[in-house]
């Protein structure tokens, strides 16, 4: 699987998607087979690609080609394999495969089964395209295809108005960010004359290309970051992500946990050279902004998550919060830490969402955690795997991968020279994460037995078990003692050093997580014995309402942005109606006036003349037509005579 063939990886699911669409609605039984097959093929090829990157540290292979020429310039596209792409490929295809398998069970009763798998495969193809792109243009194309797939999947149940609205909201909100992204691409192309990342020293991410950018690097980075903000649900464009939970749960797992939202983080990581261009001590304006956006997002989302009751919504805010964390990590210079957290998060958040899906499926599509409870007995496998995911997310150390990556991020934040405020806020976020996850666990699985529930079928639990196992296994590659994956991304060789496990931060980490879980147990367990009322809500109703209503950010947008847009359109409408329309009408009146004048002139003056002419022409025609007897021999005779005349003329002239 060399770079020239790497396009086959997204191509497999794409073909699968098309073939499913061609199958038609009625072939439910085999509709999932092409999707699974496409994903398995993509996974196999990704493993080969990954194996290729192991040949040497920092292995990178690109394949560029000319897409089209305009004038004397050419637009080049290309794809690449490097550790970043290979790791992402592996994560996306593997998690995607688990989710696909899960979907067979989850969507078994849905009437649009085939369409669902076609969309899923299409999404997978687009996302893989984003990862392997070696050209910002190709990346942008796939990026938009990802957006389209997300729109289709969020609005999958089109008959629900809320789903349609959510799909629209997601599409429009991300489009705002993409506008900035596109402007950034244009600016980048204007400055560097290429959109290829790596091109034997001429790419825009290589030193020569970066020198061309100069001072405009900050502007470009910030514009491109707009795209990342939109796609990864960062403040202030995060509002679409919780609403996107209207889609089927596997979609939430695939898009809003594992892959699509990761695209924004991936984009920043991929374009990190532009963000860090001209850095002094690892700090640039653009990176600082990234840090602060990440911090704000992480904190706000974690706070909101505490006050939610919808099981998927909690997870969605958790996702937003974790993405904020990754952004912080990228901003403070811990690129590998951010990416590792992204990969680990992909696994355990997919696990959590699928677990939530299993719960919802088992609890007859109940999504409110207050309506659940005591599911531990009814759904043991789901409970166990969900607990593993919860601990990974909360960052329980040693065996869960989330812990190590979180710790690395804390490390990186601590080392940031500008300010230590992000470090403390991130710590607060970690505590909150543990808190709301504990709350969720207690609500869902503990306490009194809620409504009747049943364990999900094997086809759904198997992916859960596999993913849970992965969260544990992955941690082996992430420990500070043998940070293999870390160094793999950095392009270095890893060394075993067991003592590093017992760094001081592990104590902090333990402390934070313990505090979070302890607080959660303290707050909720006791309170839950009898009643299903949130103790936080009773203690601080005003604050709770503030958080439960998502800090009224949606309403704020309604009152500001949307109202402003409405106002503007109303003004435009008024102008159109009265000002421009008036002008048009005036012109029309003038035209009518002119028409009346010409009509009079026509009827009185010209018409009679034309009539006379036509009468004359008709008479002439009658005379001439009498020569046309319709008999071919007459014509032939005329030709003969004409020839004779020509002959005589010629002979006479000669």
């Amino acid at each position: 699987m060399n770079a020239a063939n790497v396009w086959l990886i997204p191509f497999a699911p794409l073909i699968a998607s098309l073939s499913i669409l061609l199958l038609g609605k009625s072939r439910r039984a085999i509709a999932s087979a092409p999707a699974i097959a496409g994903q398995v093929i993509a996974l196999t090829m990704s493993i080969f690609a990954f194996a290729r990157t192991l040949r040497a540290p920092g292995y990178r292979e690109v394949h560029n080609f000319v897409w089209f020429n305009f004038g004397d310039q050419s637009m080049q596209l290309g794809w690449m394999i490097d550790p970043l792409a290979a790791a992402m490929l592996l994560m996306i295809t593997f998690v995607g495969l688990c989710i696909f398998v899960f979907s067979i069970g989850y969507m078994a009763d849905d009437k649009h089964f085939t369409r669902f798998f076609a969309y899923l495969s299409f999404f997978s193809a687009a996302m893989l395209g984003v990862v392997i792109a070696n050209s910002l243009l190709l990346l942008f194309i796939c990026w938009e295809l990802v957006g389209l797939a997300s729109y289709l999947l969020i609005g999958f149940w089109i008959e629900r108005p809320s789903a349609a609205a959510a799909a629209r909201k997601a599409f429009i909100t991300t489009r705002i960010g993409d506008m900035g992204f596109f402007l950034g691409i244009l600016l980048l192309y204007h400055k560097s004359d290429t959109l290829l990342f790596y091109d034997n020293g001429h790419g825009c991410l290589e030193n020569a290309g970066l020198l061309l950018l100069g001072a405009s690097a900050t502007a470009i980075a910030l514009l491109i970051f707009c795209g990342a903000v939109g796609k990864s649900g960062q403040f202030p464009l995060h509002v679409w992500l919780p609403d996107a939970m209207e889609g089927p749960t596997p979609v939430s797992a695939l898009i809003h946990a594992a892959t699509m939202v990761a695209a924004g983080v991936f984009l920043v990581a991929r374009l990190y050279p532009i963000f860090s261009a001209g850095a002094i001590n690892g700090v640039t304006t653009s990176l600082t902004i990234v840090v602060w956006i990440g911090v704000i997002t992480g904190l706000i989302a974690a706070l909101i998550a505490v006050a939610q009751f919808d099981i998927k919504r909690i997870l969605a805010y958790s996702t937003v919060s974790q993405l904020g964390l990754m952004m912080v990590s990228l901003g403070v210079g811990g690129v590998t830490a951010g990416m590792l957290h992204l990969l680990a998060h992909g696994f355990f958040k997919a696990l959590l969402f699928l677990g939530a899906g299993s719960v919802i499926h088992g609890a007859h599509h109940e999504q409110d955690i207050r309506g659940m409870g005591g599911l531990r007995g009814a759904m043991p496998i789901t409970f166990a795997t969900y607990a593993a995911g919860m601990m990974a997310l909360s960052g329980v150390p040693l065996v869960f991968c989330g812990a190590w990556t979180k710790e690395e991020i804390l490390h990186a934040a601590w080392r940031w020279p500008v300010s230590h405020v992000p470090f403390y806020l991130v710590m607060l976020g970690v505590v909150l994460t543990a808190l709301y996850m504990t709350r969720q666990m207690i609500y869902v699985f503990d306490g009194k037995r809620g409504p009747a529930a049943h364990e999900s079928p094997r086809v759904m639990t198997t992916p859960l078990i596999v993913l849970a196992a992965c969260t544990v296994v992955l941690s082996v590659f992430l420990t500070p003692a043998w940070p293999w994956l870390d160094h793999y991304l950095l392009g270095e060789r890893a060394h075993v050093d067991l003592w590093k496990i017992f760094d001081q931060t592990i104590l902090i980490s333990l402390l934070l997580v313990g505090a979070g879980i302890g607080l959660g147990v303290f707050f909720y367990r006791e309170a839950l014995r009898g009643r299903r009322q949130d103790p936080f809500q009773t203690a601080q109703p005003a604050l709770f309402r503030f958080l439960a209503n998502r800090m009224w950010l949606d309403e704020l947008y309604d009152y500001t942005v949307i109202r402003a847009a409405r106002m503007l359109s109303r003004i435009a409408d008024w102008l159109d109606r009265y000002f421009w329309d008036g002008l048009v009408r005036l012109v029309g009146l003038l035209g009518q006036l002119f028409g009346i004048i010409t009509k009079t002139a026509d009827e009185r003056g010209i018409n009679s003349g034309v009539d006379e002419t036509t009468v004359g022409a008709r008479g002439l025609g009658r005379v001439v037509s009498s020569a046309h007897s319709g008999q071919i021999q007459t014509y032939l005779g005329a030709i003969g005579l004409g020839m004779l005349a020509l002959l005589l003329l010629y002979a006479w002239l000669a």
Partner: protein
Amino acid sequence: MTLSILLMVSSALFCIGLLAALSRRHAIFILIGIEMMLAAANINFIAFWRYNAQPQPTGVIVAIFAIAIAAAEAAVGLALIIAIYRHYRTTNVDQLDRLKG
């Protein structure tokens, strides 16, 4: 044997063809007349080639092409006559004057 006598023979054939095309009522005779006129032209081509002593046999080649085209013309023309006959039940060109002005 001079060229002019040959040319006179060919022009006589041409005029007989013209006569057939102009005077006969039956549509097939128009075709026969045209074939005769083409043959007369062919005689001219061959005659000019023979009396010109050029190395390139252009006249012969043109005559061959003319014969091929005349064959095609005859085939299509006769097919037309059959089609016309089927439609109007006549081959009398005096009655085929739908295009009369």
